[in-house]
């Protein structure tokens, strides 16, 4: 269970107010998409959630606790670019987090423990479709493959929250579509919370279970910098009750399958799943 709360958060740079009056409660296993025009403070919003920047006023809570003042392993991140380390191979990149956690001094594991981490990393790479590229360096991968690598690298740490900062912004439409499918599947499988910043409206509504728009509601022509952006609209795009009941139905169908004895299946080899659908 992960709950994120923004409690009246403001962000100011000197005289300039970027974000004001941000109040938000995000429940567990939500996919929050943040949209808004350029320069509205979407990325600032994400950076505060990442502790890359601190709110000027208000506080951010994860599970009731104020978030750590610096980036930590409970919040994974994928940026638009530069999310992977160019000096490690694909496999090496994915293995970095677990190796750092297990070996404070060398940052490297050896023998059986290394093989265990390698196995986990390879399983994840297979999941994101990069298994055959494990020995390549990131510079040898295409943009979409690098983003998939960045996802695998973040997911191996099993973060409570995954933060995505315009992760598909630099990809071509075909690759972007594949990435959408991959991300929504991973979100479902890992049952985590995702916060994604994007300026692509269809993308936000396709992936997000909740979409918030960040914009400046007021403007002062004499001092435009004195009004910050805030959450101007908040849509629940995929009703939690619908999602929950769909998951419940899927689980029940699976349970029923295991109850059907083999003797009841038709002789022509029709699978049990096909029968249940009818």
């Amino acid at each position, binding site marked *: 269970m992960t709950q994120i709360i923004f409690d009246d958060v403001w962000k100011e740079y000197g005289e300039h107010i970027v974000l004001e009056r941000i109040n938000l409660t995000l429940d567990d296993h939500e996919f929050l998409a943040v949209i808004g025009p350029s320069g509205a403070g979407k990325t600032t919003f994400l950076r505060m959630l*990442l502790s*890359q920047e601190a709110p000027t006023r208000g506080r951010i809570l994860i599970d009731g606790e104020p978030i750590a003042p*610096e*980036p*930590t*392993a409970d*919040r*994974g*991140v994928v*940026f638009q*670019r*530069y*999310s*992977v*380390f*160019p*000096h*490690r191979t694909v496999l090496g990149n994915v293995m*970095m*987090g677990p190796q*750092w*956690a297990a070996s*404070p*001094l*060398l*940052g490297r594991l050896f023998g059986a423990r290394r093989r265990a981490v390698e196995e986990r990393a390879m399983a994840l790479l297979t999941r994101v479709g990069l298994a055959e590229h494990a020995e390549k*360096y990131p*510079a*040898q991968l295409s943009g979409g493959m690098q983003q998939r690598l*960045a996802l695998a*690298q*973040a997911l191996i*740490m099993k*973060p409570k929250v995954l933060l995505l900062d315009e992760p598909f912004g630099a990809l071509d439409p075909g690759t972007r579509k594949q990435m959408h499918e991959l991300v929504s599947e991973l979100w479902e499988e890992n049952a985590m919370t995702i916060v994604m910043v994007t300026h692509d409206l269809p993308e936000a509504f396709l992936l997000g279970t909740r979409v918030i728009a960040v914009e400046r509601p007021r403007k002062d022509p004499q001092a435009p910098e004195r009004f910050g952006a805030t959450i101007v609209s908040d849509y629940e795009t995929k009703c939690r009750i619908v999602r929950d009941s769909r998951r419940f139905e899927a689980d029940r169908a699976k349970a029923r399958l295991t109850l059907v004895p083999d003797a009841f299946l038709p002789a022509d080899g029709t699978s049990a799943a096909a029968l249940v659908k009818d």
Partner: protein
Amino acid sequence: MRRIINYAPSSGAKVILAALPFVLLVGVYFLGSSARLAIDPADKLMPGFASFYASMVRLGTTLDIATKQYLLWWDTWLSLQRLFLGLGISALIGLVLGILVGFVPYLRATFEPFFAAFSLIPPLAVLPILFILFGLGELSKIVLIVFGIAPFITRDVMLRVASLPTEQIVKAQTLGASTWQMITGVILPQVMPRLLDSVRLSLGAAWLFVIAAEAITAEGGLGYRIFLVRRYLAMDVILPYVAWITLLAFLMDYALRKVAAVAYPWDRIKAA
């Protein structure tokens, strides 16, 4: 008629074109030398290639009476020792200081302006101070090289650390890395190719400081020899020595480039 920048030589022509200036230089010297030797066979300013060869064989194979050494090899050994010690210490200082000062904000705020000012001190101007402090022996020569090169390498490493994308550093932290782990796992490997490059660029300056120090005081060394035989107008020694120093510098540069290519293959991919 295309623009001149759109004409590119073929690979065969490239080899010939690359060799051309060298051949021209040697040819011009040969013509000048022959013309002068025809007038005065004992000409000292532009001796022929035969006398170069004779001098080098003499210095390389006969035992010097005063020092009990084969001078060419002894000079080379002394100069290279100074050069390697100086460069090695500079690279180490540059790496450690550059990473620490470049990566830790408090250290950067404290030391960056100081290093910027320090690196502008002309090393040769402080050479007398070094001689006074460290004596006329090896130590002052090596300190001179370090003094001249370490600030440059330090600043170069600092710039490289600063140019690493913030995203990488934030990402490393979200993967749970400590400061030490980020330095050893993210910063150091990515700085190393740049360090090798900046050592390559410092080779010329390092030779300059070695020769300058040897010219003033030494018992041997390539620079010492050149400045010693200058008194006798012995161009037959000076010119081959200059060529020899150039060759040594070129070989070092080449070796460093190869080391970088083998040890850091990912750096090459990025450049491609």
